[in-house]
């Protein structure tokens, strides 16, 4: 990981000095990349210019920042930091800095991927003037530190992080104070996160975010494990290959895996070696990669919670299908619409099916593009609906 110490001190002092007497507008430098690792992403400007998202690259308002197979951390001039993991896309919709915090504004749009947002402790931008958007929710800032993960469907996972002191292992084990509170709002309603490691999932902009859940399994061991999970992919691949070969028939392959030291091979001797280097100081236990892995671990539980909440009104259960939009069937499934369970599939043709709540039904959808999908309401019996819908 490349960390720019000089950039984060001298240049920041110069920047802050410049803004002490005048506000900063669009097209002026509002911050820069001060950490970067892995392959370089890109920055798209409204001028049509595309820049490499390299270390020390300046950021201006309206920039669109996209990472590739790498990460970066941006520090804004108000000391707010945004960390982006691999394959993350963020738009800086507005950034206005004024000596008066109430006149400063920040509007970010986390379009996809995982990002960690930490407000500047200096309070140089009034929190009510900070607007964070995901495809399915708006996040109101009352805390200082949280993450968002947006998947390819636009679903957003928001986790409130503890106070930064919790990076201290002892305090982490003793329990941590939240960094404040945040609100997660969309057309469906608002949820407030006010405990460290509380999380909500937002499926669509119309459905209310799930009730906050405390990620109780989050502990130091898990963090350590997560860090192990996030080791360089190439090393993991090498280890897996080594293990596979050890399990294989050494006689047939005339190969003794124990004689091989894959970690001693050219993997770490190539150009990529530098990016894999790290020291203890470089390990951020709350880094965004950990949260990406955490999402993978917890997404099933959170999805289950979301599904449970969606169906709580009617008590109807879907089998082999989820409420909301289900990619497998391309149905939009509503547990309660006009007092009934409602299924809507709209490709070119449109079919809507309302079933009385409490009904038992099996629905088979056959599409020439997506194949056959079978799902059920409550039980797979009683009403049998077979749909062939082709374009």
């Amino acid at each position, binding site marked *: 990981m490349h960390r720019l110490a000089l950039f984060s001190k001298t240049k920041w002092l110069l920047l802050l000095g410049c803004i002490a007497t005048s506000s900063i507008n669009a097209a002026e430098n509002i911050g820069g990349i001060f950490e970067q690792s892995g392959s370089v992403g890109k920055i798209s400007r409204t001028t049509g210019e595309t820049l490499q998202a390299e270390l020390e690259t300046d950021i201006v308002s309206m920039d669109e920042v996209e990472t590739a197979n790498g990460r970066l951390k941006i520090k804004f001039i108000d000391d707010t930091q945004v960390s982006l993991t691999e394959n993350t896309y963020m738009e800086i919709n507005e950034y206005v800095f004024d000596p008066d915090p109430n006149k400063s504004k920040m509007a970010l749009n986390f379009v996809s991927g995982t990002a960690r947002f930490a407000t500047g402790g200096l309070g140089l931008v009034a929190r009510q003037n900070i607007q964070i958007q995901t495809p399915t929710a708006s996040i109101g800032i009352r805390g200082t530190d949280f993450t968002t993960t947006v998947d390819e469907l636009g679903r957003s996972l928001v986790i409130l992080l503890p106070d930064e002191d919790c990076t201290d292992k002892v305090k982490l084990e003793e329990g941590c104070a939240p960094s404040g509170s945040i609100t997660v709002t969309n057309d469906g309603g608002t949820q407030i996160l006010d405990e460290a490691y509380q999380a909500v999932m937002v499926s669509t902009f119309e459905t209310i975010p799930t009730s906050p859940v405390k990620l109780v399994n989050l502990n130091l061991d898990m963090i350590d494990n997560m860090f192990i999970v996030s080791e360089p992919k190439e090393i993991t691949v090498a280890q897996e290959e080594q293990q596979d070969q050890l399990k294989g028939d050494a006689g047939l392959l005339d190969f003794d895996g124990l004689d091989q030291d894959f970690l001693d091979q050219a993997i770490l001797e190539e150009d990529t070696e530098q990016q894999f280097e790290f020291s203890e100081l470089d390990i951020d236990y709350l880094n965004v990669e950990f949260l990406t892995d955490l999402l993978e671990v917890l997404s099933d539980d959170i999805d289950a919670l979301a599904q449970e909440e969606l169906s709580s009104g009617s008590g109807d259960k879907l089998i082999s299908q989820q409420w909301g939009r289900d990619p497998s069937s391309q149905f939009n499934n509503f547990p309660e619409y006009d007092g009934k369970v409602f299924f809507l599939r709209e490709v070119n*043709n449109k*079919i809507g099916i309302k079933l009385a709540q409490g009904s038992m039904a099996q629905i088979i959808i056959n599409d020439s593009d997506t194949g056959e999908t079978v799902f059920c309401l409550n039980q797979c019996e009683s*009403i049998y*609906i*077979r749909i*062939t819908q*082709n374009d």
Partner: protein
Amino acid sequence: MKTFTRKMIAGVFATVCFLSMNLASADNEVLIEQVGDNLTLTILQAGYGNSLSGDTSQSTDLTLTGGSLIVDLIQDGNLNEMFGAWIADGDGTAVLDFYFQGDSNIWDMNMGATGSADYNDILSNIVGSSNLFDIDIGGNATAESNNMDLIILGDRNDFSTSFTNSKVWAAGSGNNSTGTQTLSGIVIDSSNNVWNFDITGDDNAFATKQASNDGNSMTVELMGSDGDFQLIQNMTATCTPACAGVINLDIDSENASVSVVQQD
């Protein structure tokens, strides 16, 4: 129930009205062959075993041809029949209201069989059980932009079997003279038709097909157990953008079997 106040007005060719207040009477027969516009026709057949057709042998279609027709037809009793397919052709706005109250009636209607039958408003209200229906719309000529509402309250009504006008049941084949239809029941082979039906009762069998061009929609409410329903919406024409159909299905049932085919 709608109050019928319209008086029968003789049309261009002929209008016949039989009115029997004796519910025990039977075998009244109304023969209709009508050509011309601006017909207002009201028929009330009460009793059982009555029929509407085109000739006394009950083998010829009842014919209604013309535009701007206003037709109210009420058959009140059991074992009534409309023999032969209706040929209800007319190029212009028509309002056709059909009321069937009773059991074991037969209704065979063919709109747009030999001439276009567009922009019609058709309401069919059926209260009874074990009725048989075969409705074909747009078989040879166009029957576009019709608005059809069907309300059925009763058990064991069958819209899934077709029959010819010689009263021979022809299960599995539609009454489309083009020979291209394979679905029995209510076949709508034209575009821009709005097709709404509510079926309340048990053991009803229902099949309908909307075919041809763009703009067809179907709204279906099914209530009752053990129904067997087949809904087809098949857009065969080339549209830009692609032809689109809409089906809205509302089911409150047990042991129902519903097949929906929606293609373009």
